[in-house]
């Protein structure tokens, strides 16, 4: 309502709902002899980025085994089979690139 040129404005924002917290998975003590999946989401330019990641990760973490996987579908489509494989075979995974 307006009184003497003063406006009380209602809140236009949508309502935030409670957010359930999901704790992160425990980290690895080290990456020696671990299998680390590198999941490429397939954004433009990601091939070169993952070429670089594979090279430098292998140099920095020579005892780890890196497995490169590229999504077959677009970056926004879920691929349950891919994630099932990652869950089954990987000790950790890197995903990207988000842009």
């Amino acid at each position, binding site marked *: 309502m307006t009184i003497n040129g003063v406006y009380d404005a209602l809140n236009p*924002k949508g309502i935030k709902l409670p957010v359930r917290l999901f704790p992160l998975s425990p980290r690895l003590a080290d990456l020696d002899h671990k299998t680390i999946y590198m999941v490429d989401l397939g954004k433009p330019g990601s091939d070169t980025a993952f070429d670089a990641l594979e090279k430098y990760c292998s140099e920095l973490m020579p005892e780890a085994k890196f497995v490169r996987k590229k999504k077959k579908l677009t970056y926004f489509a879920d691929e349950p089979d891919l994630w099932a494989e990652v869950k089954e075979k990987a000790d950790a995974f890197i995903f990207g690139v988000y842009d």
Partner: protein
Amino acid sequence: MGIPSVGVGVQAFDESAKDAKMKEGVQARTVSVPYNYFGETKDRIFAEMREAVPGIKMALTIPLTEEEMKTGEIQPPDEPEILVGGTLEEVQEYFHHFRMTDGLPIIPPTRDRVSEMLKGTSHAPDEILGLIRPEFLQVSVEKVAINAVMAGCNPEYLPVILAIVEGYIEHDAEMWIVSATSMVNFHLVNGPIRNAIGMNRGVGAQGPGNQANATMGRAATLCNINLGGWWPGKNCLGTQGHPAQYTFCVPENEELSAWEPFHVERGYKSDENVVSTFTEFGGFYGSCEGMRQAMPKSLLSVQRCNQAAILIDPSLSEIILREGYTKRKLKEWLWENTTETFESWWQDPFLPNFLDKRFGEPGYWPKTYQRGNLPPDTIRVGTLVPKQLAKEA
């Protein structure tokens, strides 16, 4: 999934990533690099990744913090019903400061105005419509009405805006305006409501001048901002944006069209009121090759342009310059490479009104249209370009 992970991305998306983590309740670990990968040189990408890899290793091995191990629920803070009270200027300043406008002045959404707006619908104010991307905020009829008041809508427009918002909710996977490409939502209105609420379906329908057309599109944008949490630079990372993001709501001119209306084509009855939302984008890919492929084609479509304004993102200008294209060299390249056959060019019905009538006589066209070693039937589009380049030399 129960195994540690780390995301790798671009710094420009850090705020968006942070928001996504809060929204999903997951304190995911991420490592970001300064530049976009697309269009970057291999050397630069490799250099950036070399810098990022130690952070990736740390993200997978450093023990979790207390924050990262938390469970339970985060309760949102209570939001006041009256957000701010003040003079017109104070309310404007507040709404602008807290990113609740499109940058233009708003009508303060007072209780009286919102109550009046709600007379435009039979839906109860507290009816929940659903959740809207990108922040999945809960939306009520009243919240839509508040944004409709802000946009300058009349109550009779509210059914259209509610339908637009319901479309956003129902098809959330298809609302691309949070993309890194500057996308636009175009809303097409069909049915008797177009005329009932005074929409302009004739001359200048897409331009300024009609309150219904202008404010309903604007209300849709304000709903994206306030009910979806959309904001440029935060979760909408289209590098340049687009003027049609302010408002783009148009009625189909069913009365003059020779074809069946769009909503009838889609199975609705002609006397049903329907709003359809299309999401689209334009522009060039962010690489030099993409520019070379796409720019001449776009220039050809711009009414045989003699002068064209090309807006280039600074990051793309850097990429193009690295390949040797100064601004001048780019203009010269475009002049040399924006070509078509004379026959195709002459078939444009627009041109003969403005050109020397001798054009079209076999083999006649000014020398400026053809230089260098083009095939005899091919011309360059853009007659004034050589003169401009000569002035700039």
